[in-house]
Each structure stands twice: as C-alpha cells, then as structure tokens.
C-alpha cells in the first residue's frame, strides 16, 4: 500500500472494499455515546490500523498480552482497554469466538492487532470514534496473508558530515514494524517481504522515505531540518505556517529562556530578538525590565507592548501599586513586575508581533508591538514528567571604583583650599599668613573653607561602603510538571517555586506558581479546554533606588556618598547614625548610614494573580469552526511599608517613623467569539479567514492608608501609629471590537494577508469612540519560482512588504472627562468641603495612531544551514497624546490633547548558522537592530517640551531630536591657563569669582560670543543607535556549551550621581576617576576632570548641567555562559528518559565606559520625557548556578 492511498476511507470506499459488520453493543470501555453514534450513523470514516499505526497515538501504546486459548473477542476487548480505545462489533461474528493464543510482549497495539488477526480474514481499523472495528479482507488472496520475512539492514548518516546518527527511528511504512539505529547509526530489521518503503525519522532532521526495492541493505543519509522546530507560528487569533507569514514576527524558543536565573521571562529575552529592546534598569529582585519594540512611539501613553497569554490580552497594570507617600514622584521605586507572576517554565513559545501587519489584529493596542505567550499543553500519548531545579549564588557586578580614604582626604583638602584661595584672590577674604593647606590653621570659620576635623587628624578608618552594603545572595528554583492525555483529553499540570535573595541583604523575591491546562473532546465536532494559572509573588523590598536625599534615602546612593573616613558601626556594635558624614563638620553633605536604611526601612509586596481561560471550539462544517473564549485575569496586591523609630534621616536627631499600607485589586474579563474558515480551491488557492468580535472590561481598585507617630517598632503596620491620610481609587475601562483576517496563498508562491479591527473603548472621548485599524501585507516566495528551482543553495527566499495602522489606547481611563478634585475652604476656623474642576473635558480625545511600513526578507540557504530575516521599517505615530498648554483663561493651564508626531525607523537583521554539524555541533545565532527616533511635530506651535526629571530641567523633547533627549551645556575641555580663559567667550553664568584654570570650558553653541542659557543644546539620548545579540552553541557528544553576548551601542546615560560624586566639590564620597583631576597647570590630570573647588557653583560652575554628566552608556556584555552534560542512557539505567546537569554564569563580564554600576539604569523607567537618569539604583548581579533537568 503506498502513501497516496493512505487517506481516510469514505463510507463508499469501505463498502466497496468490504462489508461493514453490523454493529451491536457489547463494547468495553467505549462510552455510550460512541456506541449510539456508531450504531445509528454509518456516515463516518475508518482508518486502517496498518496504514495509520503511526498516525493514531493509541496504536502506539506499548502493551503486553500473553494468553492461551482465549476468545478473539476477549482479546480485542483487552487490547482496546489497554490502549484506551473503544470497540464495536457484531457479537454474532464467528471470528470473535475463535480461541487463539496471544504472545505479545512490549509491542505496540498496532502490532498486536495485526498479529492476532493475521490470517483471520479480517483487518483491524479504527473508527472516528476511536473504536476498534474489524473489516473482512474479502478481496485479499488468502495465500498472500502470510508474508515471508526478510531482513533489511543499513546505516544512517548525516548528509553533510557523514557522521553516523544514533537513535533514528526506522519504520516499515504502513506497519508498526520498526527499530532504531544504534550508536554507530546502524540498524537491522525483519520486514515482510512485500515491504515497500522504509521511513527514517529523527528530531532535527528531515524525515526520509526510501523504497526498499527488494534490497537487503538500505543505507541513507539524513538532512538536517533546522526550521522544523518552529514551523508553526502563533499569530493573533490563530497559527500560521512560518513559510506563509508575511508580517514581521519573531519567535523565541522556550529552551532559550528557561534556565536563566531571573524573576521574569522578559529579562531572559534581552538580546534574543532583533528589534525587541529589553533594558534591565535595576537589579532589584522582581522589578520590571523595560521592553520597547521598535523604539519609543509615545510620550505620555506608555511604550509597553501588549501581552497576550493563550489568547487573553493581559493588563500589566502598574497602577495597582501605590506610591510611597513620603517619597517624591520622581524618586519612586521601580514597580514590582506584574509579569513576574508567570513562571518561565510554563511558557512553550513567545512570539513578538513587530510590524503593523502582524499587530493590527490587536487594533488600538498594537502600536507598541504585541508579545504572544503560549503556555505548555499536554499531548496525547505517553505521560511525561519533568523535574528541574537550580541553585545559584549572586554577587555584586560591575561595582564602580570609589576613592579610598587617603585619596578622598587629599581631594577634599584640595577643594576647600581652592575655594578659600579663590575668595582671597578676588578680594572677598583677606589673605592670612597662617594658612596651612593641610590644617584649619588661619582659616576663617566658614564651613566651606574648613577641612573636617576627621580629615585633618585621620584615624586610619577606610570604610568600603559598597562592600558593606552588597553581599552574596542565594537563589533556588524548583519546577515540576506532569502532562499527558489520550485522544479525547489532555492535561498539563505544573508547579514551581523560586526563591531569589537580593545582593542587598533583606531584599528578596519569591514566587509560587500552580498551573493546569485541560482539553477535552466532547464529540467529533466539539472541543472544550481550560487553562488556569495561579501565582503568588512576594517582593521583599528595600529602598535601594533613590538618591541619598530621598524620603526614604536610597541605600546605594547613600553608600556612594558616605565618606570612607566614617566608621560604619559604633563601638557598641550599633549602626553609626550620629557620627557619620552628616556630622563631620565643614558643611559636608549630610547623609544617612546605608546600613541603617537597610535595617530600619522595609517594604513588602504580595502580588497574587489568577488568570486563564475557558474555551469551546465547534466544527460547524469540515472547514468552518467556531471558537468562543472566556478569559479572566484577577490580580491583587498588598503593600506594606515601614520606616522604623530608630532610623535617622541624614542629620536629623529625631526619627520620623512612618507606615503605609496599600491594596490593589484588578478584575479583567474578556469574551471572544471567532470563526475560522479554511479552504483550498483547486490546487492553486488556499484561503484562511478569521472573523470575530470581542468584549473586554477591567476594573481596578486601589487604596492607600498612611500612618505616623509610631512610638516603638513592636507593631509595624499602620495600627502601631496614628493614621493620618488615606485614599481609594476605582477605575474601569471597556473595549468592544470586531476583527477579521484573510490569508490567501496562490500557488504556494504569492501570499496575501489582510486584517482589520474596529475598536470602541470607554477611554476615548464621545466624539471619537470608534477606531478602525486596517493592514495589508504581501509575500512572494521566490524560491518557489521556476528560475530558482534549480538553485539548491537557496531553500527559502521570501520577500515581504506590509503596511498597517495600529493604535495605542493607554490613555488615562477618564482622560476625556473633566474631573473635579477637592478644593476645601475655611469658615470660622473649620474646614469646608469644596470641589473644583481639575482637568478639562476633551470629547475628541482618542488613541495614538501609528502607521507602519515594513519590508522584509526571510531566507534559508545552503540546505537550511543558514537562515534568518532582514527587515526595514518606518513608523509614524500621529495624534501623540500630550499635555498641551492651553490659554489659562479657560481655567486650565494644560489639557490632554492628541497633538504631536514621532517617527521611528530601523533595520533588523537576524541569522542562525549551523557552522559545524556532526559529532561536534556548532551553531551561531546573531541578531542586530537599529532604531532612530525623531520627533516630527509637537503641540500647536511646535514648541519644545523641556522636562524636569529628578534634578531640574535636563531633558528636551523637540522637533528633529529623539524623545526626552538630554539638554544642557557642552563641555569643550578644561581651561589650562588664564590666557585661555581670557580668550574664551564671556561666561555670563559663572559666579563673581569666575572660572580659573582647571575649570570647564563651555561651548558657545549659538556663537554669540557669550555663554548664556541659550547655549544649552541636545547632549545625548537614552535611545540606543543599535543593539545586538550573539549566541554560540557547541555540542560534543553529551556535552553542550553556550555563550551569549549582548550589546547596546550609542546610548548615553544622564549620570546624575556625577552631580555629587564627580563634581569637584568633594563634599562626600567620590568616584576614583577624580584622582585624575586637574590639579595644576603642570599636573593637569587626564584632561577629563576639572579641578577641585568646594564652591564651584559660585566660581567656574563646573557642576552645571552639561555633557560632563552625560556618559557613554554603550556596552557589550557576556550575558550568559552555560556548560551542560547529558547523562548517557547506560548511566540512567532507564530511570529517566533524559537527564542533564549544567552549570551557568549570568552577567559574566561587561565592557563599558560607563562609570556607574549599570549603563541601562533608568530612574523613571515609565517616563518617556525623562529617560536614562542614574540617581542611584539597585545594581545588577552576577549569578553562578548549577542545575539539573530530569524527564521521566
């Protein structure tokens, strides 16, 4: 029987072949419905066991059955039982009562059925209801039923390397007779002499079918099939063959992200995909990284992509978290990552929809790209049990070099001397002959002239504050999953536990997850399924991320600022809070002891999330199915913050105890109804049509209560103090949509995808409630053309072009509606409740709209040894949402308005190359992406937006530059002599003392001969010019080795810590680079750093906002190294089907000029207008781990 005949038999075909046995109840495990349908309705198909043994998983069940003289009917029942099949037959049939001997040992059901029926005149078949039925071999010649047995043997090798391939499946096509190759790639098989075709299959290679042609030796070589793993691509509302995809979609395999020691999968995506930029701005366990896909397209509506998990768009709602009441807005800690509630181990695949063609199916939410997450499902057949675990140790990574005490003392004296001497020089102070550069002798009692006493008489203390604050931390992770199923039902169950300590002791992240996925076939046409995920993420947080003057102060910045001359502990072992830098004298900057911050201030966040879906699919007709999905997402957050009664803020002598509790709840439901129609017209036309409508609604509730007046630390909840303020916020949004997509393939060569979505949302103003988002894309598979058919080197060459419209609907829930806020008044000494309008209405308010064009090529060359994609895109985002200045005579000074335009364009390249294939495997993945961000329209007049981040106005968003560019003066160099100063443009901004040699020379940008505020200009931006990722994978025998390098180029950091730690004022700790400062004309240092001067602000003003504080944030990082060993079968002795042990290191090394911890730092990560500021952040850590993956 050849392959062409291997198709379901129609009823007519069955009648022609044989008569159908009348069927009578007498079955074993088949349920009543199946029997009924089988008896009442003959209109269904049959599958011959011989032909379909490998297509029907039940037939591959391994059974053992040894019986003497038993009835054929009983044997069939028993086989059906063991294989989870039903059975249907006519009890009168003589054959059923025939007594037979059965001796089947560890063989497939298929083999057993064929064996026991051999020569009986009947052949086994499987009905569509999964019942074993018997069909008479009326037309077969009895003589042929006992085929001769012949032996076939041979060797299987790799087509390219000639190396033998072990464990290749060899099967006689149409039977279950088969074996697998041994370690030398050799096999030997007894086959019926009429066997025609052998099939060789092995994961990662193309399956090969070879005609036997009576040979006794069949040697084959297999070709690697590199694309096999991701042949199917998940797209919105369905899946597609990769070769037919016309949009820009990038996938990442689950293996790549699973054993990375991070709290959330997004961190593991860094550097993996071209155009998907993941920035780890903080190392705080459980904090969010920032993902931007193809650049920053929005100023105020957020740049976070839409996450869709198993078809359910998930809100990553950071609004559930309350700000710390005592902390100012720009110093708020990074949000606890809502997506950290998802266990990376539960993820099967991640697809990123990058262009408008792919994302337009998500309409008003597609502008920032869409990340589709598919979770693992059970598969019918064998039960699989997986266990994996790793333990690791994290430690500080890329710690900046700070001055030691001796250098700091010299630097501080230098700064105070220079200050005093300049004041004498300009005549503000009389000279004093007693002046001594090393002591306070002869100096006036002015704080900024005096050297702190502990610097004059140093006792040798040299504290390494960073070393005290950062310590190694443990990490452990355990995952267990069990999945399996049969033809009617599948299940997948998993549970996981992650415990990650932070390198600042006391900070930690823990996650507990539980997941269940079920599918069930109710009958031929109706399927149901459910996924349920539940998780608890617990964040133990410390205030690591703020500057030293934050409320609470940041631990890291406090440690950087604290002088190394100060002892961390008092003699009695308590934390030194009363004799630290705050009390050195000489006007030194006051700062809290970072150890006290760690000990006395804490925050706990508990984040629970339950989300999932229930769905049903119904086949209305052969090609037409209907799916209804109900998805839900429940999230709650409980926050508790406490600042204890022993904590002293900077130089304060009395504590300010404070507690805050916050709670947040989110309920989001979605109901989606879609129909999917597939048809083939002739051989040339393939059509797939998806259409549907969806409704989604979300409600969030958030409350916060603050208390102070704590007298002790016994009760650290708000109950322990006096409650003094509170708030509760409740908001809702809703979205109703209709969507449709057409995929059309002509001759497998010409591809068309067209989508449209219409969204109506409560967020939009009454005049603009509904938006339509269309897209179209075309593909041409040139490799299918005849002129390329002879070119063996090209396996795939597909040209793609797309254009589409998407939106960004992340505007405030009630941005279109004028809100009132409290405006109380007083009468006779008591308060009167009052309200007043606080925002204006805007009935025209609507989504931001992005228009994106994408051109791309997908290629696979040299027998799929090299494959990848190239893309070029330009995106224009219009109707940018801005707070625009309006005439204040209206009663409002700003109004949220859709006005503004930004462009992003870029080039993306990715390639996977199998450099060496064979016993030694070496493969390389490389991706590279550029993006250029340019503002093209702003507000009614195009006025630039000057933005204040954490330290005054240092950002500008203006036409022609990137959003949130850094803004300030340009440092051209350092004045080496008075003559240079005299020849330079007059600096109108310096103090009365003026600049001196060693001070910065600021650039006269506008060329008017003066340095004024008009000489501020764009001095850098956080937006990288390009990013890349490079993975090399090596395998030799059972060993595997992996190295992953990732880089970001052309990004600058606005290092606000430079305002203190490298400003020349020497009023605190300092970066060690200031040892190379300008000291004198004969000792000018390395030319980068100015002289020391305590009162620089009234002299040369080296500390003004300038390019000196903007540093190159480009970096190349060896992000991950791993080394694994897969235990050999002999060792396992059959206990496991696979066992791998490995060790890995994350954050191995970084190559960067950035002076601080982390060149990806971003204080206000969610503020597009003020990106890239470093004001002290939780550092990243290096993690070394060992782990094991077991499959049973």
């Amino acid at each position, binding site marked *: 029987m050849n392959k062409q005949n291997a198709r379901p038999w129609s009823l007519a075909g069955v009648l022609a072949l044989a008569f159908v046995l009348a069927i009578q109840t007498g079955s074993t495990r088949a349920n009543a419905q199946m029997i009924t349908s089988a008896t009442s309705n003959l209109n269904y198909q049959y599958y011959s066991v011989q032909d379909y043994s490998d297509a029907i998983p039940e037939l591959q069940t391994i059974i053992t059955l040894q019986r003497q003289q038993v009835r054929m009917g009983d044997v069939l029942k028993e086989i059906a039982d063991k294989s989870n099949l039903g059975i249907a037959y006519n009890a009168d049939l003589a054959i059923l009562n025939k007594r037979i001997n059965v001796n089947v040992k560890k063989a497939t059901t298929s083999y057993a059925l064929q064996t026991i029926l051999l020569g009986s005149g009947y052949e086994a078949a499987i009905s569509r209801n999964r019942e074993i039925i018997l069909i008479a071999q009326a037309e077969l010649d009895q003589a042929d039923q006992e085929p001769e047995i012949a032996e076939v043997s041979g060797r299987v090798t790799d087509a390219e390397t000639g190396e033998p391939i072990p464990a290749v499946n060899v099967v006689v096509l149409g039977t279950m007779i088969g074996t697998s190759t041994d370690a030398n790639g050799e096999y030997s098989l007894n086959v019926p002499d009429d066997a025609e075709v052998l099939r060789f299959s092995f994961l990662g290679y193309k399956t090969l079918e070879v005609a036997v042609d009576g040979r006794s030796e069949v040697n084959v070589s297999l070709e690697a099939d590199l694309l096999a793993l991701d042949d199917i691509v998940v797209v919105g509302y369905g899946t597609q063959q990769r070769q037919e995809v016309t949009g820009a979609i990038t996938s990442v395999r689950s293996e790549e992200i699973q054993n990375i020691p991070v709290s959330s999968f997004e961190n593991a995506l860094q550097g993996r995909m071209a155009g998907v930029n993941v920035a780890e701005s903080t190392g705080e366990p459980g904090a969010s990284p920032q993902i931007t896909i193809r650049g920053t397209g929005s100023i105020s509506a957020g740049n976070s992509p839409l996450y869709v998990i198993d078809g359910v768009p998930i809100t990553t709602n950071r609004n559930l978290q309350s700000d710390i009441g005592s902390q100012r807005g720009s110093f708020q800690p990074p949000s606890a990552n809502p997506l950290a509630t998802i266990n990376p181990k539960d993820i099967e695949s991640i697809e990123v929809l990058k262009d408008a063609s792919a994302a337009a199916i998500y309409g008003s939410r597609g502008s920032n790209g869409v990340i589709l997450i598919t979770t693992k499902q059970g598969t019918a057949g064998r039960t699989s049990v997986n266990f994996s675990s790793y333990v690791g140790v994290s430690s500080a990574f890329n710690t900046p070099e700070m001055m030691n005490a001796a250098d700091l003392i010299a630097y501080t004296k230098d700064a105070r001397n220079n200050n005093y001497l300049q004041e004498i020089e300009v005549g503000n102070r009389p000279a004093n002959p007693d002046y001594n550069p090393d002591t306070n002798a002869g100096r006036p009692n002015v704080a900024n002239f005096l050297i702190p006493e502990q610097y004059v008489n140093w006792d040798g203390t040299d504290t390494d504050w960073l070393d005290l604050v950062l310590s190694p931390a443990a990490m452990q992770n355990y995952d267990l999953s069990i999945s399996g199923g049969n033809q009617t039902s599948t299940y997948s169950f998993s549970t996981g536990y992650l415990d990650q300590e932070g390198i600042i002791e006391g900070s930690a992240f823990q996650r507990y997850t539980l997941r269940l996925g079920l599918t069930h076939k109710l009958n031929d046409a109706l399927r149901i399924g459910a996924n349920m995920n539940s998780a608890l993420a617990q964040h133990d947080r410390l205030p690591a991320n703020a500057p030293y003057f934050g409320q609470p102060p940041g631990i890291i910045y406090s440690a950087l600022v604290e002088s190394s001359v100060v002892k961390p502990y008092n003699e009695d072992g308590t934390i030194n809070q009363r004799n630290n830098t705050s009390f050195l004298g000489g006007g030194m900057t006051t700062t809290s002891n970072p150890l006290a911050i760690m000990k006395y201030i804490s925050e706990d966040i508990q984040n629970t999330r339950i989300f999932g879906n229930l769905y049903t699919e119904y086949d209305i007709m052969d090609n037409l199915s209907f799916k209804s999905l109900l998805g839900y997402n429940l999230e709650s957050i409980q926050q508790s913050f406490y600042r204890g009664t022993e904590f002293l803020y900077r130089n304060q002598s009395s504590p300010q105890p404070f507690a805050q509790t916050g709670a947040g709840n989110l309920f989001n439901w979605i109901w989606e109804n879609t129909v999917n129609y597939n048809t083939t017209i002739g051989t040339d036309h393939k059509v797939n049509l998806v259409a549907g409508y969806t409704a989604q609604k979300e409600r969030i509730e958030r409350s916060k209560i603050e208390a102070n007046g704590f007298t002790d630390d016994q009760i650290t909840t708000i109950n322990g103090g006096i409650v003094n303020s509170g708030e509760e916020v409740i908001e809702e949004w809703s979205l109703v949509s209709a969507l449709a997509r057409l995929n059309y393939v002509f001759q497998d060569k010409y591809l068309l995808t067209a989508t449209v979505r219409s969204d109506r949302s409560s967020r939009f103003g009454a005049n603009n409630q509904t938006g339509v988002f269309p897209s179209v894309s075309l593909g041409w598979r040139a490799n299918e053309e005849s002129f390329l058919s002879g070119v063996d080197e090209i396996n795939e060459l597909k040209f793609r072009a797309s254009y589409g419209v998407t939106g960004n609907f992340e505007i405030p829930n009630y941005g279109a509606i004028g809100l009132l806020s409290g405006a109380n008044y007083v009468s006779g000494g008591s308060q009167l409740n009052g*309200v007043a309008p606080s925002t204006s209405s805007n009935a025209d308010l609507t989504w931001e709209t992005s228009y994106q064009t994408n051109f791309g090529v997908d290629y696979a060359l040299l027998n799929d040894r090299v494959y990848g994609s190239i893309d070029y895109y330009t995106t224009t985002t219009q109707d940018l949402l801005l707070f625009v200045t309006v005439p204040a005579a209206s009663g409002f000074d700003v109004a949220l308005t859709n006005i503004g335009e930004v462009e992003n364009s870029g080039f993306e390249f990715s390639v996977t190359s199998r450099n060496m294939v064979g016993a030694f495997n070496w493969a390389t993945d490389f991706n590279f992406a550029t993006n250029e961000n340019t503002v093209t329209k702003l507000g009614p007049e195009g006025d630039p937006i000057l933005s204040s981040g954490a330290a005054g106005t240092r950002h500008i968003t203006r036409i022609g530059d990137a959003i949130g560019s850094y803004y300030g003066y340009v440092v051209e160099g350092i004045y080496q002599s008075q003559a240079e100063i005299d020849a330079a443009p007059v600096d109108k901004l310096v103090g009365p003392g003026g600049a001196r040699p060693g001070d910065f020379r600021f650039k006269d940008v506008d060329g008017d001969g003066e340095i004024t505020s008009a000489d501020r200009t764009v001095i850098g931006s956080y937006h990288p010019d390009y990013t890349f990722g490079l993975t090399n994978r090596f395998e030799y025998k059972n060993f595997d080795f992996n190295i992953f390098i990732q880089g970001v180029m052309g990004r600058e950091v606005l290092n606000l810590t430079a305002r203190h730690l490298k400003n020349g004022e020497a009023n605190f700790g300092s970066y060690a680079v200031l040892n190379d400062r300008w000291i004198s004309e004969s000792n000018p240092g390395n030319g980068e750093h100015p002289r020391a001067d305590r009162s620089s602000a009234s002299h040369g003003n080296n500390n003004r906002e300038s390019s000196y504080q903007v540093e190159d944030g480009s970096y190349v990082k060896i992000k991950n190294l791993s080394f694994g060993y897969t235990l050999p079968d002999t060792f396992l002795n059959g206990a496991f089907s696979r066992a791998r042990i490995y060790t890995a290191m994350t954050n191995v090394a970084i190559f960067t000029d950035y002076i601080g911890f982390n060149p990806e730092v971003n204080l206000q990560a969610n503020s597009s207008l003020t990106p890239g500021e470093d004001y002290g952040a939780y550092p990243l850590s290096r993690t070394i781990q060992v782990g094991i993956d077991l499959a049973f």
Partner: protein
Amino acid sequence: MKKSLLILLLPLLFISCSEDFTVLGPISERNVVNYYKTQSDFEVAINGAFDALQSSGTFGVNYVLFMEMRADNTANGGGATGLAATLEQLDKFEEIATASELNRTWIASYDGIARANTIISRIDGIDFTSDDVKNRVKGEALFIRSLLYYHLAVIFGNVPLITEEVTAPQNMNLNQSAASAVYAQIATDLAAAEGLLPSTGRVSSGAAAALLGRVHLQAGDKASAVAPLKRVVNSNTYALEANYSDIWGPSNEGSSEILFQVEYMSGNVGEGSSYTDMFTASGVAGGVGGGSAPQSVTDDFIASYEVGDLRQAATLSDSATVEKYEDSPSSPFDSDVNWVEIRYAEVLLNLAEAVGEGAEGYGYINQVRARAGLAAIDGTTPGTYDEKLLQERRVELAFENKRWPDLLRFGIAKSVMASHLGIGEGAVNLLFPIPQSQIDVAPDQMTQNSEH
C-alpha cells in the same frame, strides 16, 4: 447546526444590546458629567470657588507681590538669589514677561474665575430646595469672579473677559478686553450679586456694594461709587473696631469692621496662610520668602506716621517689621491669619474719595482718624484733599494690598516710584507684563501691554 447558529447569535445579541458598554464614567472622582446637579453639589462647588482665593497665585502670596510689594511701603530684601531674585526684579520694575509669578497669578486667577463661571453657567437650570441658597451661591460666585477680575485688571490691564464655562480650552475665544470693559462687567455682576446676597454671611450684600464702590473708583467713576458705598454705611451693619490692633489676628475674625476676608486656618491641612511668614519677624524661617526678608518696611513709610498715631504700634513692631499678621505658626506657610480684603475703614475712605472734598468727605476721613487717636482735619489742613486722603489711606490700609492701586488711581505711581527707587519715571511700568506663555499659546489673540 441550529444550536451552533444560536451560539453564534448570542454574542451578537450581547454586543448589539450594549451600546452603553463603552460609556463609563469616573467612579471615585467627581466629574463634570455627573456633578453640578443638586443644591448640595453647588453648595460644595462654591466652597471650591472660595478656595481659589486662598491660592498662592492669588491672595495667598502673589497679590501681595503685585499690589503691595510693588509700591513704596515695603521692599524686597535685596541681594537675593534664586526665586527671591525674581521678586526683587518685580519690586524694581525689572520684571520680564517670563517670570513664573506672573504666570502663576494669571493661572490661579482664571482658575477661580472658571470655578465661578462653571457655577454661574449651570446654576440657573437646577432646582434648589431653597431659593435663598440658590441666590446666595450665585451671588457669591459673581462676587468671587468680580474680586478676581478687579485684581487682574489692576495688575495686567487688558485681560480676556471670560464669563461662561469653557468646555474646549484648545479652541476658546480669548476676548482680550481693556480694563474699562472689565470694570464695566464687574459693575454689572456686583449689582446683580448685591441683590442676591444675604445681608450677613461670608459674602454679604454689603461686601458686594463695597467692592462695587471700590471698582467704580478704580475705573475713575467717582459719581457711580457714591451710591453703593452709602448703602454700606447706611445699612448700619458695619462699624469701626474700637482698637485698630483688634482687626487682625486669629482671634478677631468676627470683627464688625470686616466686610470680606479670605479665611485660613492652621493645622497642616493645607489651609494655612503665609502672611505671617511673608511680613512678620516671627515667621518660620526656612522657606523661600520665609521670614521678613521679602517685605521689609521702607524708611519712607515709617516716617509717614504722624506723631501720636495709634496705628503705628499696631502696624509695626519696635524693630520696624510688620505686626499686622503676627501669629505663631508651627510650620512654614501655615498661619491662622485671615486676609482682610474689605473693611469698613476702607469703605469710609472710599466714600470720602467718591464724594470729594467737603465736609462730608472730611467727616468720613475723620472717623478713621479719630480711632487712630488723631485730630480731625479739614480744608485748612495743609495739602490738597487728594494728598491728605492718600496719606490717610497709606497708614490706615498699610500692607493690605491697597497702596499700588491707590498710586495708580491717584495718578502718581510713576513719580512716587521713580523717586522711591531712584530711577527714571520712564522705567516705572503701570501694568505688569502679560505672562509670555499666555501670549505664546494664543499669539493671534493676545497682545502684550505696550510698556513691555
């Protein structure tokens, strides 16, 4: 098949029945869609309009800068840096149109006007359970709007005259009007308000009449000022406090001399006033503008008291700092001191100005002088009537934001300030510049004052 079709139809029904599905209003925030519907809504909203008077952009801080510090009674400390340096520029007529104080005052004044406009535009169609309440709320809204427009007209001169709620700020018609048109609108509004307001209360009909009189004077229409001011006097509702020093301070908020005051309370609930910090020696140091620095009293003013004037000791401390706003706040800008905006002494002096020289006029002035322990004056007293009246106003109403409008109204602002500062008269600006950002946002509709 039939069943499956039904399943398909279900969501259709759901969608088509739910046009309202995407109409969602705020839940935990009041909003213009569902507020301003009941009497109680308006009673709360009018409190919100009063709140605008407390703002630092209006009476809280900035009106003091523009109406008092600008004149010759006080001076900025000098040698100041940062924000205080901007104040010094304002004090010395060196201000620039981009000064943030100007913009803040513009924004805060119009914010209050908009709060009043919203009430005025919406109240007529609403059923109140009490017409008295409705009249009072509407009268108070008209009064607040008038008071704010009076300040805008004095400070900036030509300002947009907006009298309706603005619902589309991006596309509004600014209607920049001369001060005279603004005064005319105020006169209309106050006449209406006087009829709506009760005879007593936080804004009485008398307060409306008194303000109407003041505005007529400022508009140069003395004749029209007489009648409303006389209505106040003849109502016999108000009287001079026996002791001048009893008018101010937290304990004197119910004084029968006070026709209208902006009320404050201490306690760190955001309702405290900053006058103690701005004027007096006992303000809490630490904030910008804290302590007496920005409002040091000029020698010229100290010298202007007649011997025996009881007001001097009540106005100035021994060290010549301002005593009127003395209090003991525990934190900066959180004093209990109210701002006394209209009091009976001003009504008497306004009336004296309105009726002009004569026995009647001197009679009003002498009522005020008598309380100060000073002898009566008449036509034989040296100096012109205007000089005598202005001198009386200067000491009686010192540090009450009356001096700068007086100098303007009496036409001597340029000469007085030029000699006070030692600058040329040409350098003395009668109007402040309209904030540059307000011109930038609507350059086609807004014109800068010619002096700037």
